[in-house]
Every structure is written in C-alpha cells, then in structure tokens.
C-alpha cells in the first residue's frame, strides 16, 4: 500500500474509478463508502486529512461527498481533477435514476402502482428523518447545538417558514451565538 500523502501523484483514471465506485455503491447516503474508498482502499488521504476535507464540506452548501470530490480532485489534478471526480460520482447514479424514471413514467397512473409508490414515498420521507436523527445522535451537540437544530425544525416543519429565509437568519445567528459562548468560556 502507498503511504497516504497529498503530494502523491494520483492519475485521473484512478480518481475517476474511485469516485465512480462511491456513486454506484452509495445507497442511502454516500458517507460511509466514501470514507472507505478515499482513506482505506485508495489511500488518497489520511483519516485526519479526510476529516478536514469532510468538515469543510459539511459547513459549505451542497452534498458533503460532492464537495469532497471537488477538493480531492483539485488537490491531485487541479481543475480538471475536480470536474472528473464530480462527473464520476454522478455518472452511475444519474444513469440508474433515468432507468427508474423510465419505469415510473411507464407504470404511473396504474392504480396499484400509485398505491405502492405512495407507500414508498412515505418510507422515503422516513429515511430522511432517520438519517437526520442518526446524525444528531452521532454529533452529540451541546445545549446550544440542540437549540439551533430544534429552531430549524420548528421554523421549517412546524411554522412552515420559507427555508431560504430561515437559513439566511439562523446561520449567522447560530455562528454569533456559538462564538459568544466560546468567548465566555
């Protein structure tokens, strides 16, 4: 195995295949498989480097893994590397999505299919709640963290406020409150 190093030369095809695999095997969120391929299998980054890239990805808009793809691709192969990683990550999921969409287009309107899709839709909503709760448990945020998260839930899901406005108000507020709490420590 190669020693993980940000200066190691990683050829474009290797980046492509790595991210292609992350896309195709990433059912229900690409997080775990992405770490496995980037850190363990391909040795592109150390655990610590990956945590940093992921941490950046988490506070930026957009999917974590896509942001990680941009940064890792750029690190090894510049702009072209970033484009190749994102394209590779999206290729298989988009192809599979088109196949599923063709099936849906063909059979939707059939009463039995619509009933089944209704059940799947409820479950799809449930997967998002479950994934969010799981993240909350793994995060173990402090009291302020719970408050920020709870405010977001209440503002969007209970009060039905516009999500754009909620983000534009809550994000700066959360940062200021967190900075204030840190300073008092």
């Amino acid at each position, binding site marked *: 195995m190669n020693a993980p190093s940000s200066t190691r030369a990683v050829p474009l095809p290797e980046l492509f295949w790595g991210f292609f695999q992350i896309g195709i095997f990433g059912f229900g969120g690409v997080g775990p498989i992405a770490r496995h391929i980037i850190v363990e299998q391909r040795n592109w980054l150390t655990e610590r480097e990956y945590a*940093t890239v992921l941490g950046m990805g988490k*506070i930026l*808009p*957009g999917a974590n893994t896509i942001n990680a793809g941009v940064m890792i691709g750029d690190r090894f192969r510049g702009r072209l590397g970033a484009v190749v990683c994102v394209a590779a990550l999206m290729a*298989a999921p988009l192809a599979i999505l088109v196949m599923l*969409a063709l099936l849906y287009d063909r059979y939707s309107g059939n009463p039995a299919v619509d*009933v*089944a899709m209704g*059940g799947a839709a409820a479950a799809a909503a449930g997967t998002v709640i479950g994934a969010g709760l799981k993240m909350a448990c793994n995060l173990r945020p402090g009291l302020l963290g719970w408050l920020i998260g709870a405010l977001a839930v209440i503002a969007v899901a209970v009060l039905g406020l516009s999500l754009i406005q909620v983000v534009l108000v809550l994000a700066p507020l959360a940062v200021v*409150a967190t900075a204030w709490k840190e300073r008092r420590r």
Partner: protein
Amino acid sequence: MSDDGILWQLARSFSAISLIAIGGANAVVPAIRHEVVDVLRWMDDSTFAHLFAVAQAAPGPNVLIVSIVGWHMAGLAGLLVATLAMLLPACLLAFAIGRLTQRVSGSRGFRIAQDALVPLAVGLIVASGLDMTKAAATGPFSLVLAGLTALFVLRTQANPIWALTASAAAALAAHQLGWTA
C-alpha cells in the same frame, strides 16, 4: 411554458437553492417542493412525493431529487440542466474554499462555524423529512410507514432500499384489505 422556458426556470430555481443547501440537497427539500409545487405549480404534492421516492431508490448523492424533477419536466435536457444548476454554484464555492483548506481548517473560526452550522444542517434535514412526510401522507398508515422507516434507518446500517420496498408492498397489501393508506 415552452421547453426553453422550463429549462431556464430549472436553472434559475435550483441555482438559487444550491447556495443555501448546507447539509446537502436533503436539507432543502422543503424549498424545492415549495418552488415546484406551490410557486411554479408544475406538479402536485403526491407526484413530487413519488419522484422523491424514485430519487431515494437510486444510489448516490441526494441531489438526484432535482435531477428527477428536471427529467419529469423536460426529459434528459431537463435532468442535465437541473443537476448542473444545483451542483455548479456549490461546487465553485467548494473549489474556492478548498484552496484555503490547509490554512483555515484548524482555526478557531472554522471550529465555531462547524459547531454552529452542522447542528443547523441536521435540523434542516429532520425538518425536510417531516415536510416530506406531510407531502407524502395519504392517511394514518403512511405516517406509520414513515415512522417505522425512520426507526429502521436510525437503528440499522442496512440499505434503506429494503424499507422502501417493504413499505410499497405494505401499502399495496393495506389497499387490498380496503384500508386507506
């Protein structure tokens, strides 16, 4: 609306949402639903919920929800325009910030931003799930399916596609028995 008009609208709507998607596409599903169902009136809640289920059934990043909305409205061109609109602004930002990574990642400001924004993102994702549950609900049985699936995802590492399949089958069975799902 002409096809060009739809493509233009897809680009405009989703590139705006792209930049607030802290936590990924799953954090902004209520904004996407609001835009395509309430503002543009392109589809009703139940169609949106069905498309969401199809997107969740495919592997890969959650951004696929905008891809399938694009597909539904304007075929392959719609899929590509919607996907690029959602990806491009966030990717350009990640690219710019990524070049600063080494310098800022250990800093106090970075830690504060993380402590503040990650809980916000998690809250938004839970809110998205609740919003979609409302959109998808056709009766009390759907709420049970959503709740059981949430538990399944929370408590196991298993592929959520099983919960989607089982819920589809359960809804069908309930319908055959004459319950309203």
